[in-house]
């Protein structure tokens, strides 16, 4: 048994942080918060604080990585050393490299990379404070940063996780639920096409539970999508 496990996760229909089973944590999204980046966004999502920046389309270094038929999209997910309880050594570890990869694959389907052959579009995601769900927070921030940079896209990509704790399917796990819960299912999607671009899962779910969790996560994505659009509207006005 892990140290620090709570006895119960759900008491009278409420989770340990007071939320209902299908309730998101509080989310604040702001677009365009950095000067040097071509586009940027800041997202506070419960105890997560994440910044994303986009540079590009720009020249590719080293050159041999460039593609003659499209821009390459590169994503880097990074945690500040002080963003977690035990200081994280600077530089990429295996976890952050996997998240960088799935983040790129979550965003790539919406970017019109074919418009910018021989260039790179770079997305940097910095986790400044972590509390479960940083990859979803990062993807949500990154797609606002891409939009803020004026990169042509089919849609924004919202992201949200569902999971299972105390035998129940719940939306948007926070840290205690993530550490001691039974399953976690982060999802990202293209709302306009109702298609899924990120799907990972670990834990234990029956097929029925999985189906329910997937549906819940997609509903969470739609809520995040509204907040993303609102943030862009606040900055740019109009729809």
């Amino acid at each position, binding site marked *: 048994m892990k*140290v620090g496990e709570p006895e119960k996760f759900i008491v009278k229909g409420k989770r340990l942080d007071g939320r209902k089973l299908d309730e998101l944590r509080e989310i604040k999204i702001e677009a365009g918060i950095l000067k040097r980046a071509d586009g940027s966004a800041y997202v506070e999502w419960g105890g997560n604080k994440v910044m994303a920046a986009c540079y590009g389309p720009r020249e590719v270094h080293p050159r041999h990585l460039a593609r003659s038929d499209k821009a390459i999209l590169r994503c880097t997910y990074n945690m500040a050393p002080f963003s977690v309880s035990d200081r994280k050594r600077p530089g990429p570890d*295996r976890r952050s*490299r996997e998240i960088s990869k799935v983040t790129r694959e979550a965003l790539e389907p919406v970017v019109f990379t074919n418009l910018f052959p021989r260039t790179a579009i770079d997305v940097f995601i910095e986790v400044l404070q972590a509390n479960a769900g940083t990859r979803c927070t990062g993807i949500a921030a990154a797609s606002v940063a891409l939009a803020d940079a004026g990169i042509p896209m089919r849609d924004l990509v919202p992201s949200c996780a569902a999971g299972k704790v105390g035998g129940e399917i719940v939306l948007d796990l926070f840290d205690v639920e993530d550490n001691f819960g039974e399953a976690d299912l982060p999802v990202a999607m293209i709302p306009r096409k109702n298609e899924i671009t990120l799907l990972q*899962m670990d834990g*234990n779910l029956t097929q029925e539970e999985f189906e329910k969790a997937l549906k819940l996560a997609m509903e969470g994505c739609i809520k995040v999508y509204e907040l993303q659009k609102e943030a862009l509207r606040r900055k740019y006005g109009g729809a």
Partner: protein
Amino acid sequence: MFEVVAEVKKDYIANLLENGKRADERGFDDYRPIVVEKGVSNRAEGSALVKIGKTQVLIGVKLAIGEPFPDMPNSGVLTTNAELIPLASPDFEKGPPDEDTIEIARVVDRGIRESQCIDLDKLCIVAGEKVWIIFVDIHVLDYDGNLFDASALGAVAALLDTCMPKVEEDMVIYGEKTTERLPILHKPVETTFAKINKSIVVDPSLDEELVMDARLTVATDENGTICAMQKGGSGTFTQEEILEIIKRGTRKGSELRKFLE
């Protein structure tokens, strides 16, 4: 040029699939021939060679005594590592693991870990001080597609093959194995599906992997419980496709699991 060839190849494969055929004449839910051979490297505490078609992956399990993680003082430690060595493909390069290699290692690791395949609590020697460290090393020898399923299958086979080494005064005596096995509770397997245009096939061959839009791997245990999933590739899945893949994957998983007996 390169891109044009890829486009033509994809059209060819996708057209075949739309007519219900695969380039190597398999059914959409057919694996290539599978061979699992245990006990192939005797310096390892456990090992298995898995062939799926021409893909060959060798997995070795080493055991050592070390410290537990501070938050799990009574549990053994599982470490999964993959090497896509340049012997196995003209496209693999020397050097530290790239993101594809890391992804394979981490997805195999999650399948084992989340299914509680190994009873790690039985691997505590002195609480908070000494526990068994299990190294699962995935060594890819010939890459002809679908490394996820081959690696995951081989990892569990190698764990099942593992005998505890002799220990004297807290030193592992590597030359001498006991007959004691690792405490294995579950047998997870992973099944991987490729989506090419609208078609979804199991166990993608190398040619299919090169043109696929997206990939979905599902790990299930012997009870049909889903214990890990991983989507890959720059394409997308609909909700319906995912639920369909889970059903097909659970079924194929039961077949794969027979190779572990």
